[in-house]
């Protein structure tokens, strides 16, 4: 950097304060005032608002290696290469057991704080990652053609007016479709410190977020993203930097993302749904090593998160929902892996959750083209969160009514 550029930067540093005050108001206009008011209302409430951490296991988690039907001979004969021996699993009852790395989840189960939905799936299962993810993200078989993501619909239902507050936050490089909203602010970033304009930010945000072109023009969407970026940058960096976790999080990416999630969920900046993705579940080959590592990361990450947030007012208001776009084929393949399958388990965790088994373990004897038949529609698991946790009539979000599971939220 040149000497003159340095001088320029110093001078700018002096200018920015004044520009921001003026720019901020111009930038956000009525939206800013409404936003401040809504945030103030939220922060004035005694009880922190109910929140959800949505954790996606991306690539198709092998449910049979996660909750292992260790007492089923059909399991052992189908999984000669990648199966888990009965003696290695952490037994849950006389049929099923946790993957040996899921020690933390087993402890949650023993405490009665883990609810498992077995055999979650949907009719006419699609074996494409992308089509199936779209179905899970929209809660509709028609996928993206049906409109916004299910979380976005939930936010539209819960906060019909407060559209500017970042109620939905994803930690990661690309936004999952579940949070895709045509009306409400959504925030997406990978790591808090660099989540900002390094120079000229006030000018860029003011000019970039301000003028409105005709409806439907991509510029309009970009401008809205610029406004959300400007409105969320400071709050998110501050919340993450000032956060003092009560436990040490593991160093892997999922652990770091969950620490960020814990920071934001407890910061009272309006975050209602936090989304985090755990990548790498598409284990067509060399599954044993890969899936064991994933289970270990999942367990250490989630255990740290739960230990960290439990007992704080905001932390006790966080429900965790874990899902994956599909399970995997019952029979393993010759490359020590498994191909795309259908039904799999989902998990609820967190202080508000009452432990238990829901649904039914799919039969290993009654398969469709080598795949499990799902025993429960995954939208019933969503409905449970919608009705039981957020108090929203699930049909308004899911398009039709699904029967919630009983007793997940006390």
């Amino acid at each position, binding site marked *: *950097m040149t000497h003159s550029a340095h001088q320029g930067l110093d001078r700018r540093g002096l200018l920015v304060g004044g520009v921001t005050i003026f720019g901020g108001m111009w930038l956000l206009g009525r939206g800013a005032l409404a936003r401040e008011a809504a945030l103030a209302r939220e922060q004035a409430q005694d009880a922190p608002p109910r929140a959800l951490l949505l954790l996606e296991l991306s690539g198709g988690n092998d449910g049979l290696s996660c909750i292992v039907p260790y007492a089923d001979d059909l399991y052992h004969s189908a999984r000669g290469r990648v199966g888990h021996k009965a003696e290695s699993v952490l037994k849950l009852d006389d049929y099923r057991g946790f993957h040996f790395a899921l020690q933390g989840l087993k402890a949650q189960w023993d405490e009665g704080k883990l609810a498992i939905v077995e055999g979650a799936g949907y009719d006419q299962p699609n*074996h494409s*990652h992308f089509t199936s993810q779209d179905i899970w993200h929209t809660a509709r078989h028609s996928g993206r053609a049906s409109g916004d993501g299910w979380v976005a619909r939930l936010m539209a239902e819960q906060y019909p007016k407060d559209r500017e507050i970042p109620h939905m936050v994803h930690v990661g490089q690309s936004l999952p479709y579940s949070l895709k909203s045509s009306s409400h602010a959504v925030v997406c970033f990978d790591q808090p410190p*660099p989540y900002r304009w390094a*120079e000229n930010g006030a000018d860029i945000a003011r*000019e970039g977020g301000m003028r409105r072109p005709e409806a439907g023009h*991509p510029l309009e969407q970009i401008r809205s993203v610029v406004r959300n970026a400007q409105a969320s940058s400071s709050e998110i*960096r501050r919340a993450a930097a*000032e956060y003092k976790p009560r436990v040490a999080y593991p160093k892997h990416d999922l652990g770091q993302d969950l620490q960020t999630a814990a920071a934001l969920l407890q910061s009272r900046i309006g975050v209602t749904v936090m989304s985090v993705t755990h990548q790498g579940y598409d284990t067509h080959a060399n599954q044993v090593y890969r899936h064991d590592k994933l289970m270990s990361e999942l367990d250490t990450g989630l255990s740290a998160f739960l230990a960290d947030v439990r007992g704080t007012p905001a932390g006790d208001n966080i429900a965790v929902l874990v899902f994956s776009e599909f399970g995997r084929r019952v029979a393993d393949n010759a490359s020590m*892996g498994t191909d795309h399958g259908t039904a799999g388990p989902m998990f609820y965790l967190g202080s508000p959750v009452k432990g238990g088994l829901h649904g039914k373990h799919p039969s290993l004897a009654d398969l469709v083209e080598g795949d499990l038949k799902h025993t429960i529609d995954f939208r019933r698991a969503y409905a449970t969160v919608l009705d039981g946790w957020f108090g929203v009539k699930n049909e308004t979000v899911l398009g039709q009514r699904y029967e919630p599971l009983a007793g997940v939220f006390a």
Partner: protein
Amino acid sequence: MLAAPAAAAGAGEAWTAREAEHLLNRAGFGATQAEVEAAVRRGREATIAGLFPDPARTPKPEILGAKTLPLGLESPEARLRNVEARREGYSRMQPDLISPLNMYGDWWIERMRASEDPLRERMTIFWHGHFVSSIKEVGDSHEMIEQVQFLRDNALGRFEVLVRGIGRTPAMLTYLNNNENVKDHPNENWARELFELFSLGDGNYTETDIKEAARAFTGWSDAESRFLFERVVHDYGRKQVLGRSGNLDGDMIVDLALEQEACARFMAAKLLHHLEGAPAAQERVEDYAAFLRSHEMDIGQFLRRLFADPAFYREEIVGRRIVPPIEWVVGSARKLGIAPPGQMVQNMGDVLGQRLFWPPSVKGWEPDMAWITTATMMYRSNMAGILLGLVSVDGLIRDAEFEQPRMDAEMPMMGALKKSRNNGLNQLAYIQHTGWQPQVALVEQARKAMAVGDARVAAWMAVELLSVEVSLDSGVRNAIAAFVAREREAEGITEQAQLLGHAQAEAVLRRTAHFVLSLPEAQLN
């Protein structure tokens, strides 16, 4: 300059700066004004013809010298070490570990920035995001280079050559595990993606088709980075795929896929979407699918037809496409007249969501608004600031506003970000630490353009850095002019006309360029 003569236009269609720039933007990397003017003078037909130079003139990358390729560029252990090291983000600490793949990436970026064959590079990126493999799974620089080179060589040729050959590249055989697909308990990974993502699209085959096709591909394997058919593990039994039955083998499955009506439709839709920046209407897809079928699925002919099609210049698509990251960084560098190191461009692509050789999934990169998040909008601005020498990456990584500056024991050089996904920013910090500075000369360019006075500086900057459609917008021009005026006055330059002669002129113009490249308008072309 925008009122270009329409004399060279063919078939009664307009050929002005708008059309010329649109074509050059969609077929290359960020057209400069000089290039647009030259294209207007040359006329439409000659400009289109110029996009297809004799491929024999394209030099092979030096890194593919015959001496090194057959045995691989590194020993297997060194290869693994390099991949692991780069994955963990440590290569910046040890320049000797920077692998051949990075060097190839540098060569590729240079081809994008300055070659006479930019359309081939554009389409190579397209195919890299279509016939996906990632170094993360492949783990072998040499095999990745060979695959991308295969895509480049055939980027403008017949689709059949691509789809038939890609399954034999060792990178693909590894990435989708077909090298482990054997008669007993086949692995379906490649067979599924061949149909779903590479040729037909979801809904145009059954689950049984996939299972049976996987059997046909058993034995397609590799050894010593070469395709190898392993007869002993091939399933010679009878299969039924896409309505045909018999002792089908892998090549016959490819034939069957190519014969499907859905194949041309799927590829026409994807190509149109990619080049036009929005999904095409069904009629348009059918029209181009029929063209593909009657022209041996020839991609070059498809592109020539599209570029000459008046509908390609329609209002709804010109200047309305979100520019993908690599194209945006290369295009910005070209417009600014600078040649950043290829490694820097690759890292910027990574930060903005498009890391070459590391597509995020087998589906490649998601286009359009998926590129734009709250973070990437800020990062695009920050990347432009780095290109212009205005933004310090260390300053960006260390959040001085909220965090105490700290020296990190593990990363003594800087407060590097820890997550593996933050490799790009850490690498950029390293490049700045090596003393890299941009060779920007905006004052000189402004003088040539006779941009005297705030309004003319703004107009010049808008025309140079934005696409024609938005550069004419008076709102944008006024905003830029107001920015210039404020920056100028802050430097104590009271007379507009004195700006270019002032010692701080370059700094003012750079800050203005940074502002312009950060605008929503600059993300479109």
